[in-house]
């Protein structure tokens, strides 16, 4: 028995109340002592001088972004950068940070959701900084692709600078096409194929067993299904809305939009060339393409690395098909889907943040992005660079990627987008499952218009 224990016991035996008090004091002292190094540890981890960079990425993407951060650190040793990787639920995490008074200095903005932050005054209007940095502004203007740069222009302000293009296109399995005797699809956006040609190819590439079970699918979608349906509608001559910024009406009730969505839904439910809602529950559509069980896959460049890692997969990329309502001779379209870098309006390190944004969205940062195999850069110099071509040696139709950003159109930019998505999720479901015709989207159009009028 230790002397301390003995003393405690003897004081209790003697009936002295001080024993308990001493015990309490000791407990308090012990607690304080144990907490002190922990608190100190927290303080040391928390580098208050550093510029915080908030972004969302999967592990591969995080590595590529860290290359940009590391290169920036190397070139700007005086600026400390603390990367903050978001978990799932970006807006939830961001709002929690900002509510706690620790809004990140530089934050990733998404084409569809940045307006929600810009409208609330969270993001800094970068025009003020661009006006002071005329040389960079001029370089950016000449190097940028107009539609991508303008995506982040909202209510007269420039709230982010684009850093990568994440539009969607089609991957196709060259070997499966050759085996089925289907001619290879187009090589550029300017000479697209039609919905009918696409359907014929998908039908010829779908194989079923004697029991009717699909052994190989003609087409799989690896993106959000309602956005993919909307992309088919864009290629049928209907933009999501006119204008794209602060729209008061979305074109879900347009006949050509309905026609394209119906065509997309029919691929699964009527023509049976794509897996339906039940079938995609049990399998990853990207994996189906990677293992050669699907001939065409709709997706963005973030799938590229998954597919080049797949053993024995010989693939290339092609453009979207165009519908009958798109004017003749019109090129096929992709969506913009870009992320950009924004600066928090409450940042205490605006100058350092601006240096970082300039670096990541400028020629050097974009060159690193282009060589990563993970992203398509947004500056012309990086798009047409040897580094980008070298990172994509596996594909022949490189023009689909290098001219993709220029053939992209945006989705609506409104602070009410989260509410619109919730409505879309509800109303597109039955149409894409085949339990309601696409004409029912007229009802969705009215609901969305109400939300847009009173967000």
């Amino acid at each position: 028995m230790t002397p301390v224990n003995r003393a405690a016991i003897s004081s209790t035996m003697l009936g002295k109340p001080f024993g308990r008090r001493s015990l309490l004091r000791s407990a308090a002292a012990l607690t304080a002592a144990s907490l002190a190094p922990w608190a100190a540890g927290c303080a040391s981890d928390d580098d208050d001088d550093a510029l915080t960079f908030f972004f969302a990425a999967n592990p591969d993407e995080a590595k590529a972004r860290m290359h940009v951060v590391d290169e920036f650190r190397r070139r700007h040793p005086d600026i400390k950068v603390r990367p903050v990787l978001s978990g799932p639920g970006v807006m939830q995490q961001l709002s929690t940070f900002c509510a706690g008074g620790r809004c990140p200095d530089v934050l990733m903005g998404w084409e569809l959701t940045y307006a929600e932050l810009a409208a609330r005054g969270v993001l800094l209007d970068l025009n003020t900084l661009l006006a002071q940095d005329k040389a960079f502004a001029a370089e950016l203007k000449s190097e940028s692709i107009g539609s991508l740069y303008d995506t982040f222009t909202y209510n007269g302000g420039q709230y982010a600078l684009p850093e990568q293009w994440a539009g969607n296109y089609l991957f196709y399995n060259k070997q499966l096409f050759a085996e089925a005797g289907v001619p290879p699809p187009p090589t550029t956006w300017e000479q697209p194929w039609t919905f009918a040609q696409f359907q014929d190819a998908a039908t010829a590439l779908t194989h079923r067993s004697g029991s009717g079970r699909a052994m190989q699918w003609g087409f799989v979608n690896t993106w959000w299904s309602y956005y993919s349906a909307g992309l088919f509608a864009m290629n049928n001559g209907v933009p999501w809305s006119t204008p794209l910024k602060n729209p008061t009406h979305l074109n879900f009730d347009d006949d050509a939009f309905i026609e394209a969505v119906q065509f997309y839904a029919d691929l699964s439910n009527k023509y049976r060339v794509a897996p339906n809602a039940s079938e995609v529950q049990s399998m990853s559509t990207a994996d189906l393409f990677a293992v050669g069980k699907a001939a065409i896959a709709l997706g963005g460049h973030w799938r590229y690395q998954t597919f080049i890692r797949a053993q024995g997969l010989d693939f290339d990329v092609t453009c979207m098909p165009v519908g009958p309502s798109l004017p003749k001779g019109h090129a096929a379209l992709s969506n913009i889907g870009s992320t950009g870098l924004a600066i928090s309006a409450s940042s205490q390190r605006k100058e350092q943040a601006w240096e970082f944004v300039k670096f990541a969205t400028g020629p050097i940062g974009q060159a690193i992005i282009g060589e990563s195999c993970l992203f398509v850069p947004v500056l012309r110099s990086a798009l047409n660079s040897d580094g980008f071509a070298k990172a994509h040696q596996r594909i022949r139709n490189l023009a689909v990627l290098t001219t993709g950003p220029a053939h992209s159109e945006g989705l609506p930019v409104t602070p009410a987008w989260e509410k619109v998505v919730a409505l879309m999720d509800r109303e597109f479901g039955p149409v894409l499952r085949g339990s309601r015709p696409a004409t029912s989207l007229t009802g969705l159009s009215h609901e969305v218009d109400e939300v847009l009028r009173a967000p």
Partner: protein
Amino acid sequence: MTSVDTPAAASPVSARRARGSKGKGPSRRRARSGRLFIAPNLAAVTVFMVFPLGFSLYMSFQQWDVFNPPKFLGLKNFEQLFTSDPLFLIAIRNTLIFTIGTVLPTVLISLVVAGVLNRKIKGIGIFRTIVFLPLAISSVVMAVVWQFVFNTDNGLLNIMLGWIGVGPIPWLVEPRWAMISLCMVSVWRSVPFATVILLAAMQGVPETVYEAAKVDGAGHIRQFVSITVPLIRGALSFVTVISVIHAFQAFDLVYVLNGANGGPETATYVLGIMLFQHAFSFLEFGYASALAWVMFAILLVLTVLQLRITRERSWEASRGLS
């Protein structure tokens, strides 16, 4: 009584000293120690419960998006909720269906399971452990596992139904099946807890009552219905109230099993999902707070009603017995 208490309580000298020092005596010191002991818990309750409660009540009268200062709206959030939000009615309807679909089967199944586990059979401990296992699994893990089970093409449930000739059921794909699937998982999660409570109550029923019933010729089922169930009414009432509260607060299970929007369509759009969506997707924290207080009010009314009914019944029962 501890050796510390003894001198203060027993010795008249100590008592006089305590009175003379005007409160500096051992009893006052004991009270202070007591306060010190509960202080950490009290602080935690204040910081993590009382403050958020008060804050959310304050926020329910404001418009607040976290980024900008709150703006006072008065009762506008509540007005909008009751008069112009069509999804509120859908969420109420779904929550009621989910509550009934969860609480009724939970109580009935746990009664039967507790009744079976209460029997004195060899190796009953193993069965008890198996039944209580789901209690140790987190809701999110449970929902992920059940997603595999509910898979339309390759799910365990449809494979097993296939053995008896039932075609594949689109458990999580079709709206009408989605709510049934959710209730099934919720019942699976709730039964162990309810069983623990009911089994404990059953073990408190005196053996002599059963012996008397046996003498009167009552069978097992008659004993269960006429003796066990009436005598564990308190525990049954507790289990019902807790299950109703849990069902009303359902969020994690729905979020993982049916998605962040309570789909497909609005099939599983319950109040918990609506609250989370408004707070963290739409950044309408004021509106979400108002909804939280409406949920609290509904639960309070339901619980008070339920307790009053139970009390009246037990009073009638005791009068009938006397």
